[in-house]
C-alpha cells in the first residue's frame, strides 16, 4: 500500500468517526413528549395526570424577595443573593388540611403561613400567629423552614433557618406560636441553607441538624473582607460548620456535633436524614455545593462516620443542591437524588441518583449512580427535586425545578465570566472582588423544568405536556395532597418569583393509599418511620421526613400510588422506636391514620 492510499484510508476512518460523533451527540430538545399544547384530556390519556398552575385561584399571591447584602458584593449580588425561596408543608392546626409555609428573604419582608381553608383556598395567617416578621435587619434573612414536634405535644413546631439567627417557634396548639429560640439554646448565628429534624439517637425526641453554607463568622451585611467565596469550584472546604443539636427533652438542645463526629465545613445546600445504611438509625446525607457529597453513617445513635468516599457518593465533586429520597425501582430501598449543574458546552456535571449496590450494609454500604442510565441526569442548573407518584401508577416520579439567574434574555450571558473564575486559583476565586460583574446578565436563566415520569425503571420528561411550562428561577419543591383528593399536588418556591401551586388531576382509575403516622414511644411526628407497602407483587418503601429536597418539606403523610385495580396485601410500619406494625390488606383510596402501639 502506498503512503497516499494509507493516508486516504486513515482520512476515511476519520470521517467515519466524525459521523459517529454526530450520531451520538445530544441534540437540542426536540418535539415529542416535551411539547406544549397537549390537551388535559390527552395528557391524562398519555401520562395519567396533568398539572395546572392555580396559586392565584387558591388565594395565594406570594412573590419572593431576595436580600440586599453588603455593597461590596453589588457587582455579583444576583449570585450571592440567589437563595432563600423555600416552602414547607404542615398541618399546623391539626384540622386535617395541609397548610403551606413559605419564607421570604428581603430585609423587612414577611413570611407567609397559608392556612388551608378547606374550600379550595388558602389564607395567610402568619402575621396573626407570629411567624411572619422574621427578616428584620440585624437578624438575618430566612432561607427555609422545617416543621417537627420537638416537645411531643401533638403540634408541629417550626424551625426557621436563616443567613443569620435561626429561630425556633413552639406551636401553641395551632392557635399561635411562641418564640423559644433563646430558651432552646440554638446557635446565635448560622449562615444556613438547610436543616432537618431527625431523631438520631431514637430516644423519642426530635433532634435538629442545621447545615451552614457560608462560614458562621461572616456577616453578609457587614463584610470585613471580600475573601469569603469558596476556595475552589470543586474542592472547597471553607464553608460553614454544621450543628447537630440533641434534644434534651426539657425544651433545650445541646450541641453534640463534634462529639458525634461531624466535622464538615463544606458548602452544604441540602441535607436529608434517613436510614440509608440499614442500621435502623437515620443517616445524614449532605449535598454540598463546590464539592463532593457527604454521607454520615449513624453508628447506633452513638457516633456518625463519614463514608462518602467508600460508599461511592463522593466519587466526583459537583455542585450538590438537593437531596431527596425515593424508592425508584420499588425495591424496598431508598435511593438518593442529588441535583447539580448541567450547562451544555460548559458544565455537564449531570445530576446523580445514588442507588444501593447490594443490600445496605452499615459502613460498607455502596451506591451507584443510575441517573444517566435512567435519563434523569440532565436538568439544567438544577435545584429542588422531589419524588412522588404523580399519576398514581405505582412508580415514583420526579419533579425537578431549575434555573439560576434569569435576567437579560439573549445570548449575552455570564457563563464565560463564570468559567474564567471557576478555573482560577484559590487566591483569585475566593475573593469576591475578583468575580466579574454580572451587569444584568443571565446565568442559566429561563430554564424549562423537568417532570420525569417513571415508566417502570426508565424516566421520560413530560413537563410541558402535563402543563409545567414556567421558567422562573425555581428553588424549592414540595409535594402534598393539598385538597385531600388522593393525589400529589406540587408547590414550587421561586427565587424572586411567585409561589406556584400546580394542582394535579389524575386518571380516575389510578388508585392510591395514604398513611398518616403518629408516634408514641417514637417522636410524635413519626419522623423516621417507614411504611413498607406490598401490593400486586410489588413493594415500595417510604419514610416520614423532617425536611428534604432543597429547602423544602413534603407533607408528613405518606402517599402511595397503586395503579389500576390494585390488590393491597399488607403494609408494614417500621417505627423509629424499633417496633413494627403490620396492617393486613389496608383499604385503598383512603388515608390511614395510625398511632404507634404503646
Amino acid at each position, binding site marked *: 500500500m502506498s*503512503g497516499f492510499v*494509507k*493516508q486516504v*484510508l*486513515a*482520512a476515511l*476512518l*476519520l470521517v467515519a*468517526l*466524525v459521523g*459517529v*460523533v*454526530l450520531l*451520538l*451527540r*445530544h*441534540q*437540542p430538545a426536540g418535539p415529542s413528549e416535551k411539547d406544549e399544547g397537549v390537551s388535559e384530556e390527552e395528557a391524562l390519556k398519555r401520562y395519567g395526570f396533568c398539572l395546572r398552575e392555580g396559586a392565584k385561584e387558591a388565594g395565594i399571591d406570594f412573590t419572593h424577595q431576595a436580600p440586599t447584602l453588603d455593597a461590596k458584593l453589588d457587582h455579583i449580588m444576583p449570585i450571592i443573593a440567589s437563595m432563600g425561596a423555600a416552602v414547607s408543608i404542615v398541618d399546623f392546626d391539626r384540622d386535617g388540611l395541609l397548610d403551606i409555609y413559605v419564607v421570604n428573604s428581603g430585609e423587612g419582608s414577611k413570611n407567609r403561613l397559608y392556612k388551608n381553608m378547606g374550600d379550595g383556598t388558602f389564607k395567610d395567617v402568619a402575621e396573626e400567629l407570629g411567624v411572619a416578621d422574621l427578616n428584620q435587619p440585624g437578624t438575618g434573612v430566612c432561607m427555609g423552614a422545617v416543621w417537627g414536634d420537638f416537645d411531643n405535644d401533638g403540634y408541629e413546631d417550626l424551625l426557621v433557618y436563616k443567613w443569620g439567627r435561626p429561630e425556633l417557634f413552639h406551636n401553641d396548639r395551632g392557635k399561635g406560636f411562641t418564640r423559644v429560640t433563646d430558651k432552646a439554646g440554638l446557635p446565635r448565628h448560622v449562615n444556613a441553607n438547610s436543616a432537618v429534624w431527625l431523631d438520631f439517637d431514637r430516644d423519642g425526641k426530635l433532634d435538629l441538624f442545621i447545615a451552614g453554607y457560608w462560614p458562621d463568622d461572616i456577616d453578609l451585611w457587614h463584610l470585613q473582607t471580600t475573601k469569603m467565596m469558596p*476556595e*475552589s*469550584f*470543586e*474542592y*472547597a472546604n*471553607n464553608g460553614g460548620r454544621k450543628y447537630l443539636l440533641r434534644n434534651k427533652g426539657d425544651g433545650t438542645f445541646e450541641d453534640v456535633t463534634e462529639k458525634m463526629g461531624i466535622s464538615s465545613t463544606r458548602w452544604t445546600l441540602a441535607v436529608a436524614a434517613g436510614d440509608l445504611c440499614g442500621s435502623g438509625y437515620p443517616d445524614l446525607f449532605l449535598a454540598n455545593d463546590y464539592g463532593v457529597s457527604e454521607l454520615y453513617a449513624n453508628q447506633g445513635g452513638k457516633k456518625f462516620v463519614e463514608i462518602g468516599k467508600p460508599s*461511592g457518593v463522593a*466519587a*466526583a*465533586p459537583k455542585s450538590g443542591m438537593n437531596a431527596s429520597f425515593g424508592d425508584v425501582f420499588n425495591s424496598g430501598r431508598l435511593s438518593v437524588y442529588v441535583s447539580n449543574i448541567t*450547562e*451544555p*458546552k*460548559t*458544565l*455537564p*456535571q*449531570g445530576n446523580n441518583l445514588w442507588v444501593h*449496590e*447490594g443490600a445496605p450494609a452499615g459502613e460498607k454500604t455502596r451506591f*451507584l449512580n*443510575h441517573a*444517566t*442510565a435512567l435519563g434523569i441526569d440532565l436538568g439544567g442548573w438544577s435545584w429542588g427535586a422531589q419524588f412522588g407518584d404523580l399519576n398514581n401508577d405505582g412508580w415514583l416520579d420526579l419533579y425537578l425545578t431549575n434555573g439560576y439567574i434569569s435576567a437579560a434574555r439573549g445570548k449575552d450571558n455570564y*457563563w*464565560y*465570566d463564570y468559567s*474564567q473564575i*471557576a*478555573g*482560577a*486559583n*484559590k*487566591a*483569585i*476565586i475566593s475573593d469576591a*472582588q*475578583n*468575580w*466579574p*460583574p454580572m451587569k444584568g446578565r443571565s446565568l442559566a436563566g429561563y430554564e424549562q423544568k423537568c417532570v420525569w415520569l417513571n415508566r417502570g425503571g426508565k424516566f421520560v420528561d413530560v413537563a410541558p405536556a402535563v402543563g409545567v411550562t414556567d421558567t422562573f428561577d425555581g428553588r424549592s419543591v414540595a409535594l402534598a395532597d393539598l385538597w385531600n383528593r388522593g393525589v400529589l399536588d406540587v408547590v414550587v418556591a421561586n427565587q424572586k418569583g411567585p409561589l406556584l401551586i400546580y394542582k394535579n388531576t389524575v386518571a380516575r382509575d389510578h388508585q392510591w393509599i395514604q398513611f398518616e403516622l403518629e408516634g408514641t414511644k417514637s417522636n410524635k411526628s413519626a419522623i423516621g418511620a417507614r411504611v413498607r407497602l406490598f401490593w400486586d407483587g410489588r413493594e415500595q418503601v417510604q419514610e416520614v421526613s423532617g425536611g428534604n429536597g432543597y429547602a423544602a418539606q413534603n407533607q408528613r403523610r405518606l402517599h402511595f400510588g397503586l395503579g389500576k385495580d390494585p390488590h393491597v396485601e399488607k403494609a408494614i410500619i417500621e417505627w423509629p422506636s424499633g417496633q413494627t406494625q403490620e396492617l393486613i390488606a389496608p383499604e385503598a383510596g383512603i388515608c390511614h391514620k395510625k398511632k404507634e402501639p404503646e
Partner: protein
Amino acid sequence: MSTSPPPTLDRPPGPPSAPKKKGLLSFDNRYLAPGLITAILVVGQLTYGIIEVHSSPLLSRLTGGLLSTYSPTFVAILVCIVMELVLGRLFGGRWPHLASAYISGISVGILIRSPELWPYILCGALTIVSKYAIRFRGRHLWNPSNFGVSLMLFLAPLSVASLSQQWGSEIWPILVIWCLGALILWRLGKLHITATYAVTFVLLALLRSQVTGQKFLTALGPITGPMYQLFIFFMITDPKTTTRTKARQCVVAVLVAVAETLFRLTEELHAPYYALFTVGPITNLIEILWDGRRGAAKQHEARKAAGPAVAEPCGNGTTAMAAACPAVPSAAPPADESAGSHC
C-alpha cells in the same frame, strides 16, 4: 498534547551517526513528557482525586457486581494506545512507540468532561486517527489532541465540555508542576515556547482587563488552572506539530496567545483550544511551503553545482538528499512516522 518524543524530531534529519554509548544513569528523553504527565495525574489524584469516575449499572450487571465504576480517563488512554498500535502496525508496518499515544490518552481523558463514555472513546480515536489522516508532505498540521478535543467541543457541545475547574485550592501543586515542567521542557529544549506563551498570556490578560474592565487577576485566572498546565506544557510544545526553529516557535506561541485573546474577547469558552486549532495548522503550512521553496532553490543550486548526477527531488527519503536539504520534509512520511512511533 505532546505527541512525539521531542528531541529526535527537533533535530533536522541527518546522516546516521554512530550510536552513542549509554551510561548506566542515562535517560531516554522520550520518557520525560510521559513521566511528567503521569506525575501530574498521580499527584492530582492523590491530593484531590481528579480522575473522573463514572458509575455503570450495566458494568455492574455484566460483572456480577464485581466492577461497578470505571474511569473514562483510563478508557481514553486505552483507546489511544490501542488505536496507535493498530494503525501503526497497519499503516506503518511496525509496532509504534507508545509514549505519545499515552500522553494523548491522558490529555484527552483529563481535558474533556462528559457524564457519558462515548465522548472519551471517540475523542481518543479521533486524536490518534488524525495523526495518520491529516498530513502534508509528511508532517502533521494539527496537534492531534488539540484536534480531537476541539472537534468534540465543536461537534458535540451538548455532550462534552472542557476541563475548566480548578483541581485544588492550594498553590503548591501548581508550583511543583511548573518547576518540574520547566525543568523537563528545558532539558527537551522547549521551555522557550511555554515561557513565551505564558509571558504573552499575562501581557494580553492585562490588555483584556483594560478592554473589558475586568480586574487583572480575573483575566489572569484561567492560566492558574489545571487545564492550562496541560495546555502549555504538553500541547503547544508538541515537537511534531510546532514549527522547526526556536524563533518561529516563539512567534507561533505569541500568535496562539493573540488568537486566544481574540476568542476570549468574543467570550468563547474554549478559547485556547480553538486558538491552537486555528493558528497551528496555518503556521505549519506556511513553514512547510516556505521551507519547500527554499529547499527547491537549494536543490536547484546543488544541481547546478553537481551537474546531472543529482537528479532526485529533495525529500524523497534518500539519505543523500536528506543530508542535503535538512529542513524539507518528504512528501511521503518516513517509515517511522507512518508507524506512528513519534506521534
